[in-house]
């Protein structure tokens, strides 16, 4: 393992915020590159969305009066609320990472618990959204991109939740301390990424 004595190294504030002052472990590098590849994956989906939307004469609603995002957004605070909630859940996740950097396993567990609750609530809201959406995936480019973008984002939220839940359970086995916390830092990075993607997807689907 790389040396853990990083006392004299110049401090990069951004890096020290996200991953601490110690040298990044292989696992963290792996997560960084993995997030690159995930960005490219969502870029592909979003490129498809933009291309189809650009080409379409009429985009949403598909069938008048069935499902109108703008109308929903005006009538309800719900989508915005859950967006804020998901993005804000990056804070307890980062706090969990901060806690474990100081060896505070209890704080970490608390942060993770909050994240898991918020994430689950977000997924439930997405389920509500899907039930609201009274169209099938094959109705047109609008509906298809809607289901795919929200679906793949939801799958990533679910994956993140399972990851965090797994770490949460591992912490009961006495795993993770101030120096052995790569998985927690990686999960934190991933969770930030999931939130950032949602901002983009939400903007495209609901605001644009």
């Amino acid at each position, binding site marked *: 393992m790389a040396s853990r004595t990083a006392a004299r190294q110049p401090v990069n504030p951004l890096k020290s915020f996200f991953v601490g002052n110690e040298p990044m472990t292989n696992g963290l590098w792996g997560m960084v590159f993995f997030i690159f590849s995930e960005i490219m994956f969502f870029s592909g989906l979003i490129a498809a969305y933009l291309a189809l939307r650009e*080409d*379409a*004469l*009429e*985009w949403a609603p*598909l069938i008048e009066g069935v499902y109108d995002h703008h109308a929903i957004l005006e009538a309800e605070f719900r989508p915005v609320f859950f967006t804020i909630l998901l993005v804000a859940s990056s804070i307890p996740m980062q706090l969990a990472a901060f806690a474990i950097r100081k060896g505070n396993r209890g704080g970490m567990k608390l942060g993770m618990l909050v994240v898991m609750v918020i994430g689950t609530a977000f997924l439930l809201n997405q389920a509500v959204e899907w039930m609201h959406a009274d169209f099938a995936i094959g*109705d*047109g480019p*609008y509906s298809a991109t809607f289901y795919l973008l929200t679906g793949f984002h939801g799958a990533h939220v679910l994956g993140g939740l399972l990851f965090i839940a797994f770490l949460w359970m591992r912490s009961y086995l006495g795993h993770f301390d101030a120096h052995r916390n790569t998985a927690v830092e990686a999960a934190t990075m991933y969770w930030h990424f999931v939130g950032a993607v949602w901002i983009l997807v939400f903007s495209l689907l609901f605001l644009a």
Partner: protein
Amino acid sequence: MPMPSPRRIRLRWRIAVAASLVTGLLLLSAGVAGAQAFPPEAVSEEGSDIRNLYLLVFFLAAAVFVVVEAGIIWLAIKYRRRDDSLPPQIHGHRGVEVLWTVIPSIIVLVLFIVSFVVLDHIESAPSKYEPVEVIDVTAQQWAWSFYYATPMDATTRARISDDPADVRLRVSDGTLFEPFKTYRIDVEHIRVDSIEGNTLMVARGVNGTVVQDHPAGEEILRITNGTEVSQDDRGELTDSIDPSSGAVTTMNTPIVTVPVGKTVRFNISSLDVIHSFYAPQFLYKLDAMPGRTQALWLKVTDAGFFQGQCAEFCGREHARMLFSVRALPLDEYDAWLAALVAPPPPAEEAAPADDAGEAAPEDDAADDAGAAEIGAETDPAAEPGTSRYGGPPAPAGLPTQPAGWTAPRAGAL
């Protein structure tokens, strides 16, 4: 010079054999290639431009090829291992490395500029006032249909669907229309939203668009009874294979007739999958994309009969999706076209002509339920001109349109 050892002589023999094998093979290939190192002679202006560019690229490439291959063979012979001493350990040389970065850069820059000029030349549409012959090329699995229209005329062919979701109108010549003007068609009013190729994006009161009636007498196009488009020699693919030998014959393939010396605009589109309109002697091809119509400009320079073939893999019978190009001198072409677009025999054929010509009644029914066809198609059975020019007479009962024709649908339902 001391007597070389037997081992060394054997080695030399081996090297000689290997080197002559390589050189011989390359020379042989080059010799055989000499016969066919070039694309066919072009029969169009654009094709000649492309062929000249090809020649430039070819001779540059050939020079690089000969120099580099000869260099490698020379190096391989000259510096083969003779003893166990360590050769000079050269790690690099700034000067030559810069040199062989700069030289390819210059070659590439020259090639880019020349290619760009040629591209710009062949891609630029001719002047708006230059007379242009417009030919619609419609590809489908696995056939070609060719329609002729008289351009720059106030009449054109159009089909419009009654499906409220379908807001595209397909016409032969989009240049006649301008965006955001309202045109009157016999069945209803439309507003042109935009023009893509020759597909008009029209709003017809769906999705809340208000249709303004245009002042009478202005900007009104009569689309009905357009001068016609017609279809020429659409052959069925099964006809083009000799059942005994399995050989493909080009005699029964569909023929597109083009004038010599007058610019032709091929409006290329597809009804199903991607095809590609390619005649080797044009040295030019353009994909037939479903849902889009794209223009290919050509000025044919030589009269004659040329082969063409779908170049983009399009499924089972891709290999047999052939066509022929018949280039006629302008006067002969005009006469041929005049005969082709001569009005059909009057009386009872006028109204049901479409239906009689449809190949697949169920498709026809579906189309008619959803589409009001504007513009009567000329019945090719009544077409007088085909057989005079060596093309096969159109078999009776040929469809006027490809079976299953549906208007390209808009992106959103």
